[in-house]
């Protein structure tokens, strides 16, 4: 496919990227002020991961590892689980306890990673 890959999360992070340019997005940036790195695996955590950086200091979403130092927290998800968490279907704490989400870095930073920082996709 031309400009889309197989991950569902791509669509969501693309939306996030655009969302951060809006007023509502800017408020999130102001509120959180942290840098998250997100590793998304199509099937199994740790395999074929695609890395995104959600920079809530600058209000950017970029593909690839963070280059400005160390992210405040790094998350690893399966594609489906990331969608579930971002759309509120799955509680991040629960996901963490179930092993559906792996966290590295500051736990207090990780706790600010909640569904409400993500924009919701609209349905046709």
């Amino acid at each position, binding site marked *: *496919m031309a400009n889309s890959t197989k991950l569902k999360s791509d669509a969501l992070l693309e939306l996030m990227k*655009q969302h951060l*340019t*809006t007023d*509502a997005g800017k408020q999130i940036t102001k509120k959180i002020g942290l840098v998250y790195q997100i590793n998304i695996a199509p099937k199994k955590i740790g395999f074929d991961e695609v890395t995104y950086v959600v920079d809530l200091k600058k209000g950017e979403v970029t593909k690839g590892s963070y280059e400005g130092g160390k992210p405040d927290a790094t998350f690893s998800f399966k594609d489906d689980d990331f969608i579930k968490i971002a759309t509120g279907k799955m509680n991040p704490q629960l996901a963490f306890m179930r092993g559906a989400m792996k966290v590295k870095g500051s736990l207090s930073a990780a706790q600010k990673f909640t569904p409400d920082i993500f*924009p919701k996709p609209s*349905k046709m």
Partner: protein
Amino acid sequence: MRELVTGGAACAVPGSSSSSSNPLGALANAIIGSSSKTQERLQEIPTSTAAPSGSHFYSETNDHLSALPGSEFGNSLLQPHAQGSDFLSGFRSANQNGFADAWDEIQHQNQIPPHFDQFHGPRPAALPQPTLDGPPQRVLSSFLHSFVGSSHGSIPFRPTSLPLLGLSEGDKQCIRDRSSIMARHFFADKSEDFINAQVNALLSSLEIDSDARVKGPLPGRFQELEDYWNESQGMVRPGAPAVDGWITEYSQHRAAHGDPDAWAHSFEQQHGANGWASEFEKEQSQLTSIDQMRGVNIPNLEAMEQTRMLAHTLAQNNDPKFQNSKFLQFVSKMSRGELIIDDNQVKPAASGDWAAEYQQQYTGGPSWADEFAHNQLSHGPEQWVNEFSTEREQHGSVDDQWVNEFSKLHVDDWAEEFGQQVGENSADNWANAYDEFMNEQVAAKQRLDASRGVYVFSDMNPYVGWRLLGIAHAENDDDQQAIAAMMRAQEADPANLEVLLSLGVSHTNELEQAAALKYLYGWLRNHPKYGTLATPELSESLYYADVSRLFIEASQMFPEDADVHIVLGVLYNLSREYDKAIESFQTALKLRPHDYSLWNKLGATQANSVQSADAILAYQQALDLKPNYVRAWANMGISYANQGMYEESIRYYVRALAMNPKADNAWQYLRISLSSASRNDMLEACDSRNLDVLQKEFPL
């Protein structure tokens, strides 16, 4: 009578695929179902007039067949039926009829074909025939076998009833392999069937019910009835897929228990269904006269079929709420009972030789038959005959009225029940979809009437129901369920453009790009105008660029066709080229300005490309056209939330949820909005899904 019966079919709901094909069977169900039920219950009600026969029946059979499920099951049925006593009192008066039918059926099944003619004589002559083989349950099962066999071979049922009685497992396998639409329906659910074995025990039983009893009225002594029956043979035969479907489930069931004891299963299943039917009938216990009862029975059984079909979809729903629902509790209660009995029965029966047992039972039969005949005679068969004929006439004359009553019953009671027990839609919304469906069905009925006796299967085609259900799900903001329903529709009609587009849209919404692309390409390939553009080799490996190129070509071929612009818009959503998508939808809207779903598509696309303010205008258009469009209300909420206007978003989510409390996405989004709006005080109401509190707090 046939009109009545076809009327019943015409009013059938999505589940009609299985039941509509044998509407006469539905009537038979009503009659025979009541009889066996009555027998069961009479055993437990000493005051009942027919109690002696009932208890005799069971003591006899128990002597000969200690392993027979009848007696045990009768006991197990006691609790569920104990509370239905006022229903029973209505039925007690009917039991002669019921017995008579059951008796006839028994007679018929065990009669070698040449002898059958005897049964067309006056009823009293038939009664003393000492040919009873045993409990009707067993007979029903063998009967069912033969019916399957006959419908499979497309040969008249009667002559083959006995020869094919001992269908082997291999035969069943064969039938299963050849089974068509219905069977495929079941296959689609197969894994779920195993997962939800308890649910399916009941579901399959419903299936059996209708099929097993199709022949109920067959042995009727009335020549007219016989004629009707012969005519209806043609209608029964299209039901073969349903039967095959049953066989599929049945073999599964069998495999699960490793027991070749056919009759035990069918017995349980039959009674499981009766139990259900009685539950349902209790709700309508105000209708106590026989005629009414029978009239109502048909919708009941229809409803059972429909519920079963729908429950197949729902079986895929692992939602805990559904698992906890009243309906499922009841279903699992029933099926648990069956399973226990099944286990009890399995072991002794498996070790014994079926044929030997059968023979044993056969020899024991006549005494029972005498009892029965005596009992029957003492209750005055003449009276029964009269009653039956007047009833039939009444049914014939009040056909329309009955149909009206039937449809009312369905739309109100059934849809409501569906909504609360099973439904993922609000009852109202579902009822709307159902109304629409009913209209189509009424049209179908008119056609059916016009072509007397010719069964128009395509009009009854289940895909219509599945498609409408799928649309209802999509409009109610539940893409997973919409996909499930549309998949069924697509199985029945793989080339339906509307279904393919819906599947493409729903998969796009679920961000499943490969699947979405497949269905959108399928749309192009099956389109009468654009099909030529599609090249077969492309269907093997779909690339977005190729598909979109084809659609651009198509849109240039017929720029006035709104459909192709819609699909193109969906495709651009898939590739997140939202500007192009918006352009496509706007083009389509110029051609079709009153398409509410198109307005919503435009709005969703605008929202996803961070033009939430524009999106809200588009949603407003959609809602002006269709005020109960749950998806648009929910999308409104999303757009407000994405703009940081959480308080507003809450109101829209609550509004959407008021219309469809099963919209899980909206609940999740509502929760996020509540916490974002620092309304943690309302989180509890959200978590407990207390809409009253939320609606009061956030009126729109």
